[in-house]
């Protein structure tokens, strides 16, 4: 139980760190002077001290939505697979619920974008809606095939099963599922090539456009939500597709887990450096790839049993 609570706290803690790590790594690779790894925390504390400016066109939605964006993600944190063997995990939640919760937070984020009658917000939500709609099927299909390989749909149980015995006989479909899930990770967290979290250029903005006139504490909440979302996806990937090393005892296992997370972050950073941001109407091609891979993993699972 302690391990359980500890991991959740840990994940929450390193969430900003991961994002700033990606940023720093990218700058490093681009021969820039990297930002400090603790930039995330600095931003957070600064925003917490600022006053909040609320648009005069905005309605009660602006005052409520940020919390509704964050809370489903926080709740999701509690449902993640264990990082240590034998640790407590929530057994009564399956992958659908988690996708649903994430969609819930996205829903309110989009509403938030529309609330302050600015053109940017509308644009952002419209693009986000477009991408989310295409992400959904890939997500569900991937989850389906993973659940079949793991022998359970509940994420916690699935993580444990996969750790207990890795499905060697299904390596191919396992790989396909992993690929499609990684694409989803990029798409859902608005990283390049789907979205560019750094710029505020109206051609490229998706996530940033939605929150363009959110300030102060609200912005802090939203940023936290973004980082938590990344952590969720990263740790899901870690414990579903890199299911090893749970059997060691606590410190080593946790360290290993964190290593996985940073590995994933590094992978994301590398991709960001090496690819250009896609035009909005090219994004479906990428997600199409994800969907195709999900289908492939299902088909290989059924037909080839591989």
């Amino acid at each position, binding site marked *: 139980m302690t391990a359980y609570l500890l991991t959740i706290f840990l994940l929450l803690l390193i969430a900003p760190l991961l994002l700033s790590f990606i940023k720093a790594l990218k700058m490093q690779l681009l021969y820039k002077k990297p930002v400090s790894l603790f930039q995330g925390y600095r931003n957070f504390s600064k925003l917490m001290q600022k006053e909040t400016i609320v648009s005069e066109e905005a309605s009660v939605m602006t005052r409520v939505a940020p919390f509704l964006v964050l809370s489903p993600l926080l709740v999701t944190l509690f449902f993640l697979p264990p990082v240590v063997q034998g640790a407590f995990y929530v057994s009564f939640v399956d992958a659908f619920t988690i996708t649903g919760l994430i*969609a819930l937070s996205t829903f309110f984020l*989009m509403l938030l974008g529309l609330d302050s009658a600015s053109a940017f917000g509308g644009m952002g939500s419209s693009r986000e809606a477009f991408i989310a709609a295409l992400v959904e099927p890939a997500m569900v*299909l991937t989850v389906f095939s993973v659940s079949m390989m793991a022998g359970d749909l509940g994420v916690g149980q699935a993580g444990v099963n996969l750790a207990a015995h890795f499905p060697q006989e299904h390596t191919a479909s396992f790989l396909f599922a992993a690929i499609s899930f990684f694409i989803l990770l990029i798409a859902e967290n608005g990283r390049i090539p789907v979205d560019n979290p750094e710029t505020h250029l109206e051609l490229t903005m998706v996530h940033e456009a939605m929150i363009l006139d959110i300030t102060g504490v609200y912005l802090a909440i939203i940023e936290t939500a973004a980082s938590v979302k990344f952590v969720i996806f990263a740790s899901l990937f870690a414990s579903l597709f890199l299911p090893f090393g749970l059997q060691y005892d606590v410190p080593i296992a946790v360290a290993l887990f964190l290593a996985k997370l940073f590995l994933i972050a590094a992978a994301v950073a590398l991709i960001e450096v090496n690819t250009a941001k896609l035009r909005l109407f090219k994004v479906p091609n990428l997600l199409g790839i994800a969907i195709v891979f999900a289908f492939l993993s299902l088909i290989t699972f059924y037909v080839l049993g591989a």
Partner: protein
Amino acid sequence: MFQFDTLSLVFTALIVLGAVPNLFYSHGYLPHIERKAHYRLHYLTFVFSMIGVVVSANALMFLLFWELMSLTSWQLILTEAKEKKTVDAARFYFLMTHFGFVFLLLFFLIATDGDLEIGFSAMHGIVSKFAYPTLLFFFILLGFLSKAGAVPLHVWLPYAHPEAPSPVSALMSGVMLKVAIYGLFRFLFNVLYPWPLEWGVVILVIGSLSSLIGVLYALSEHDIKALLANHSIENIGIILIGFGMGMIFGSMGLKVLSSFAFIAALFHTFNHMSFKSLLFMGAGAVLHQTHTKNIEKYGGLIKAMPVTALTFLLASVSISALPPTNGFLSEWMIFQSMLSSSHLDNTSLKLAIPFAIFALAMTGGLAIACFVKAYGITFLGLHRSSNAKHAHEVNGWMRAGMILMAAVVLSLMLFTPFYIGWFDKVLIGLGHLSVYAEIFPDGIWHMHSVGMHGGVVSPLILLGALLGVTALLMFGYKALHVKERIHRTWSCGYRTSARTQYSATGFAGPIRRFFGWLYKPDEHFVKESIEGYSSKFSDSHYEVHVKPLFETTLYESVAKAVNRISYWVYRLSHFEQTRYAAMIFNLMLSVLFSYRIFAHEFSWATLLLEGMVMLISIKILIIGEKQ
């Protein structure tokens, strides 16, 4: 005459749940209707006839109430027939329901040997002797799905539902469509049992198509009620997916899974009833304040109409199948039953069902987009028209109706196990296995999928957790005593105005562009460009319209054909003005000749001879030479 088994009772309950809040609402709505007597009469008859349909125990009663239902709903659409659009929509609707009725009639006549008073169980005996059960299946399908509005018989919905007064469209979309689902349940279980595998597949395919197409066309709508009507198509599709899965499992002998899928379908039926009625009520309230159905003329209504906004939000979250709402739960069940397809020992089917999963998931994503659009454009941002500016909350009765319906939605969310228990009893009544114990093995907290290594969801815990965390965060925010400043929205130094903010058309833009090959929209774009610059223009107007799928291919072509035939018949029939004697002559000739051939000795040669003789004599005596 009448029967009250569990299925009937459950659907009666559905109708009552849908109708009682609606009564309040329409009482509040009544002052704005001119023909009150007409409205009251047909409204009540409509509700009673729906109940009559679900409790009637023989074909005669069923058909009687069914037609009565169609008749009254048609009259209700005509209640406020001001412009031609309404009249046309009503006519189209009535034609479509009659079209369905034709097939139902045929089905019943074949299944009862023409003695319409016999009960349904007796019909089963007759049908099992009938040589072509699949024919009957297709009759039923056409009959009920034309009422339920499944693709490709869906075209009337986006026309008819918007034209009806809002309470009526709530009833039609929320409740009447479900009566068709009742028909499917009743007759597929009691009469056309057992099913071949193909039937389930057919229903599954229709369901997937309907769900996807419905939501896609909903996205492209900017008439709010038409948008909701298209969503009804989508949800009927989802229900049919569940139903089809149930049939597939049933015919593959997986009894438990099939019960589970059917329960999912029933549950979604109830959910759709609740939130769709609520949405239509909200739309009606908005429409009734702003006097327009065009979503582009709304905006910022959340400030003026808090109750409507809140209930509409609840319904939107629920219809977008987001946890922990009831919509999510039923869709979760349907997903689970589809995931259990891995139990099927039929590889091609196993490989096919993921496509249905894909369709359903896609539907879910698009539904979210669609309701963000509907809610955001209607209630958030700046008012886009003066009507929207001066709108205010609707009267108490209508509010009461909406709140009651919201209560129904919440009850479906909170008392899921209770409802599931009900549906379970229905399935037992229909001779299926009981799966309540499998769904709720340990108390009402956790809801299990019955499939091997299926998922679990615990709605109440989820709800509690969400509420708790949100409350905690908000409390924390309060505790911080953050300074707040009100300032206008930043938009690159310009002032934000109704014209600068995103429109519904714009919002759906990317998706419409991506699915352009399907919509084939007709776009109108005019702009007054300043001295030839394409980028600088003083004034521009963009508008896009999308016709329902299949309208041009199926419906308009049929209309054309009928026109052409009738034109020719009309021309031919005018020979009788002058040539009656010749006509009677030829008639006598052909009749006697045919009698001679058929009644005495038949041979193709003589038949051919008759044909030639008739042609010649018609040419000579009737048509004659051209002057």
